């Protein structure tokens, strides 16, 4: 077999495809969402030898219905913006491995990333693995996911004209959604586990004025009626509601389980603490996007891209100094 340092070296010929990449990248970016792709674009344009490892190009963009705050694009589908990012990546020939990362550690000054099928090494890292929508434990919810049960959706209110819907959550996203959908829906239930809504006052006030919205406090959805289509939900306060659609807006959680071994500092909610230049407490490790405490916690697509660029520049400067 010809030895080619660009290609993985297979340790065995068994079909598990376990390999150890002998090559050491300048930079590995973990995550292929907005922050990760932007970091890759910058790293590549600055001549760094970099690799992106991420399962889904676009990340959470794919779960957004419409996006109208990415500068220059007034009205675009989340999946289309994800495609733009992917096409930019391909155009610049930035390598991407669509694998799930199992472990990140540091050995002899080199970062090692173990994925579902192999191991990769790099001198610097950018952690850009974003957040995941918080899924709730509701019986039968998987069966109806995307056909009656929706997470972080952004549908047009008019789709629910004359329908009865339920929204779970009490923060801004849930209350805003209730206000928006109440314009068209016949009836909107807002179900919150606490006694008082957490959303901004302006939205709570707007909600209070709507006659077709009923807020159910101190309640959780435990089960979805096992019918062919979504028809009913059951609450833990002994109530059953007849609805057409269920929206879950219970927030997002950072994907930060991977970083324990590296000793990356996070805040109490698990977000990676970053400084002004997207550095973490570990030298050579930068972080960008929704998984971090950056950009005042605003977590926008454009701020994720900006953080990705800053992190790539940080990694570049770090390598130059070494």
């Amino acid at each position, binding site marked *: 077999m010809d030895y080619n340092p660009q290609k993985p070296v297979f340790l065995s010929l068994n079909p598990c495809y376990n390999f150890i990449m002998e090559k050491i990248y300048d930079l590995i970016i973990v995550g292929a969402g907005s922050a990760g792709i932007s970091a890759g674009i910058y790293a590549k344009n600055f001549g760094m030898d970099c690799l992106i490892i991420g399962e889904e190009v676009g990340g959470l963009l794919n779960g957004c219905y419409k996006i109208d705050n990415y500068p220059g694009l007034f009205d675009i589908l989340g999946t289309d913006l994800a495609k733009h990012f992917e096409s930019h990546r391909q155009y610049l020939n930035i390598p991407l491995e669509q694998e799930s990362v199992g472990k990140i550690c540091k050995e002899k000054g080199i970062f090692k990333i173990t994925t579902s099928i192999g191991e990769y090494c790099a001198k610097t890292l950018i952690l850009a693995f974003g957040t995941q929508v918080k899924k709730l434990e509701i019986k039968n919810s998987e069966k109806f996911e995307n056909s009656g049960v929706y997470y972080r959706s952004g549908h047009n209110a008019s789709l629910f004209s004359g329908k009865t819907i339920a929204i779970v959550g009490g923060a801004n996203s849930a209350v805003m959604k209730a206000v928006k959908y109440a314009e068209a829906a016949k009836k909107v239930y807002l179900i919150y586990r606490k006694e008082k809504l957490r959303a901004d006052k302006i939205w709570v006030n707007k909600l209070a004025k709507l006659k077709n919205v009923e807020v159910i406090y101190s309640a959780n959805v435990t089960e979805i009626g096992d019918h062919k289509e979504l028809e009913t939900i059951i609450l833990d306060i002994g109530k059953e509601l007849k609805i057409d659609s269920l929206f879950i807006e219970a927030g997002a959680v950072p994907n930060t389980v991977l970083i324990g071994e590296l000793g990356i500092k996070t805040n109490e909610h698990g977000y990676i603490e970053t400084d002004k230049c997207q550095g973490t407490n570990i030298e050579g490790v930068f972080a960008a996007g929704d998984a971090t405490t950056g*950009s005042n916690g605003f977590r926008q697509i454009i*701020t994720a891209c*900006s953080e990705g*660029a800053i992190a790539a*520049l940080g990694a570049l400067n770090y390598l130059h100094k070494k």
Partner: protein
Amino acid sequence: MIYDLIIIGGGPAGITAGIYAARKKLKTLIITKDWGGQINRASEIHNWPGTRVISGMGLIGEMTEHMKEYEIEIRKGKEVIDIDKKDNIFTVRDEEKEHEARTVIIASGKIPRTLDIPGEDKFRGKGVCVCSTCDAPMYKDKEVAVIGGGNAGCGAAIDLLKYAKKIYVLEFLEEMKADPIIMDKLMKSGKVECYTNVAVKEIKGKKFVEGLVYENRDTGKQTELNVAGVFISVGMMAKAGFAEKLVELNQIGEIVIDKDNYTKTPGLFAAGDISDIKYEQIVIAAGEGAKAALAVTDYLKKN
């Protein structure tokens, strides 16, 4: 009429701030000399995420169109000359008029730095240029010099490749500072010669530019170069004097902000290249604009 927000500047930071503010239904006025600014001189942008290649003017056009989808008041062609704050209201004065607002975002960016050498002013528009995208076609089959070996200078050289017969790039420091992707393109053309560690001393000519004199910074030896055009790309400078009373400026005249875009005056924010952020990139400026507008939204809720 008291606005919720006045944005000063119409580059990527200012426009993005405008998009975000308008989406938050803030009563917003944006005052700018022009759309874009330094971005207009970029003929090829390769690092705006989601767009493979776009010209600076193209990108700023798309951003401006996006902003105009929302309700926002625009005052174009005016330069802000003073900002003051009294009883929690800011007064922003341009050459003609005063405007009042509860908050202000300064996003006026940077302007081209000058060399301050003999001939620079005299031949401005007569061979001395700062905008390669605008002026490159005038140098068809001519020999030209670009002063500055960074991304901007080498970008100017790329614009000139299509037209000029020969391009000299003169860099003050010991190394060229442009990204490898740009350097590769220049070197492959066979038309470009780079001189590093040189200081340009004078631009010469009669009616129009005929040449320049540069000095080797180690030996002090002066050499004359016959060129018909001199494109100056030696970086940018911040000009925030109009806000002096209310902000802290660092050594190079940039507005000092914290990581959430607050200046030392409550209600006054800054975003993009005019602020003391470490890296100056379009996507970073846009991110800063979004961040500043959201910080304004928070501030207005609390005050």
